[in-house]
């Protein structure tokens, strides 16, 4: 084990860095506010380090920001034409 570096959740290979997560999230929030839920889902998914619609492929050990999951769930609901509900992002 000697010499092995301990890596943070956002340093895992293939996953976005903390800065990238924040960038993707900001872009996603802008799309969400403009009512572009499909684009928002894509960007939130990027922030979570996965492709949109990859729900079945999610690995549970992958770090996930609950706030992004919350926002993406709202985007999914609104994308399904449930537009009169009070689903807001945080």
């Amino acid at each position, binding site marked *: 084990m000697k010499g092995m570096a301990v890596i943070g959740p956002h340093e895992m290979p293939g996953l976005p860095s903390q800065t990238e997560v924040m960038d993707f999230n900001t872009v996603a929030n802008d799309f969400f506010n403009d009512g572009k839920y499909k684009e928002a889902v894509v960007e939130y998914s990027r922030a979570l380090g996965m492709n949109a619609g990859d729900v079945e492929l*999610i690995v549970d050990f992958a770090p996930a920001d609950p706030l992004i999951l919350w926002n993406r769930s709202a985007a*999914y609901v609104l994308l399904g034409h449930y537009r009169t509900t009070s*689903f807001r992002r945080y």
Partner: protein
Amino acid sequence: MLDAALYDITRCAKLLPPAETILFRLAGIQILAHEPHKALSTLRRLEKTPEVLAARDLATLIIQAEDSLGEGACYNPEFAVVAIAVAELRIRVPLPREWIMIRVRAKFETDDLKGAEEALAQIPAERIDAEVLLWKGKARLFRDRYLEAAEIFQVIHI
């Protein structure tokens, strides 16, 4: 979409300590995704605010509507028709496919074939599957529109 939303919100609820807002959102999506029993158990964990009580009523209504189409003591298709109409007024969003199917089955049971066809027409194209086509075919068949019914059944067969 609702499956994906449900997955995300469930995962979110697991990651965060239980909070009213998260659980209420989770219950809302469970209702829309036609998981009324799960929604009820989520709602039971919340304080009895007017919103929570209204959501509990809605979930209970859907459960009762489904039960009233089953055989036995609960059988009461007229109730199912009314229950879905009430649910539609309360939810103020497009009805989940499963609720439309409850309405279709209830309309059939009450011999309102035209009503059943109208309900089937509410289902968006992307959510039409073999089950929907089967009911559409049956509605045509029972209204003596044999050629149209045959065409629909042929599509299912292919």
